[in-house]
């Protein structure tokens, strides 16, 4: 499976953006504070991470300041199929997951993503400043990583 397009609406520093990901090794660059890490946050957000793992103390802080709702959609290509997986934060603060426009539970979406091979862990999604943690963590914590990999 491959992540073809990321569509962002009012998520963090993005008002509206459509980001196609070409095949091959892709790099994202730009000045400090431009929004590079926020793109990673947008992907991880749809893939289930909670606010605290996205540099936000609560879900509302993920919504672009001045807006009242946010949504990120991932267009995924899985063999011949094209699947849209999205997550929205409504003005109420309620979170809604959708697959191809139809509302689904978080559990169902996580299962679907896992089936397509998207494992969103600390050894597949390395956040800024976190690369050395694999070496600096205690052997006990690393044993837990082994559990996940097994």
């Amino acid at each position, binding site marked *: 499976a491959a992540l073809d397009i990321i569509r962002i609406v009012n998520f963090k520093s993005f008002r509206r953006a459509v980001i196609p990901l070409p095949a091959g090794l892709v790099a994202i660059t730009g000045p400090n504070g431009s929004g590079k890490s926020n*793109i990673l946050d947008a992907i991880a957000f749809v893939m289930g991470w909670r606010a605290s793992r996205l540099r936000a103390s609560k879900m509302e802080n993920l919504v672009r300041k001045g807006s009242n709702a946010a949504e990120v959609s991932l267009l995924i290509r899985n063999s011949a199929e094209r699947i849209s997986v999205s997550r929205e934060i409504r003005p109420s603060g309620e979170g809604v997951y959708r697959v191809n426009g139809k509302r689904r539970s978080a559990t169902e979406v996580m299962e679907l993503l896992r089936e397509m091979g998207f494992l969103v862990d600390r050894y597949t*999604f390395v956040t800024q400043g976190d690369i050395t943690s694999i070496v600096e963590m205690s052997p006990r*914590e690393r044993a837990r*990583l082994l559990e996940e990999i097994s």
Partner: protein
Amino acid sequence: REEVVERTLERLSGAFDEQIRLLFGGGGGELRLTERGLEMRVRLPSKKPVSIDSLSGGEKSLSALAFILAAQRLRPSSLYVFDEADAMLDGVNCKRYVRALKELSKRAQVVAISLKKETLEEVDHLIGVTMRDGESKIVAVSREAAS
């Protein structure tokens, strides 16, 4: 279950050893399960072995990458995202890093955020981001826009 973990560990340690050798141009590594948990050992070429907490920032970054690449061989993910994993790497190691990512991108989708010229020169596609009028804007999705 315990047997699964044991067998995984054996393969993971072997893959880790290989990745260390590839990334550092020599030396080796080992992962070992003890009463303390999963211990990591790294031996760098032309250097006296020291415990991993004494390694330098750049050496820790590459050792962690070796672990990730080893894990990928056992439990592949469809997508890998690295946010400035090369922040502490010097020019030579940036090249080793991005070449390892290039190899990984043959088997999985790989996105790397980087500010390093030595890394950006080697990728297939570059996406630029800037902040304008208080919002993030994508300025290019191109081949080698930065070189």
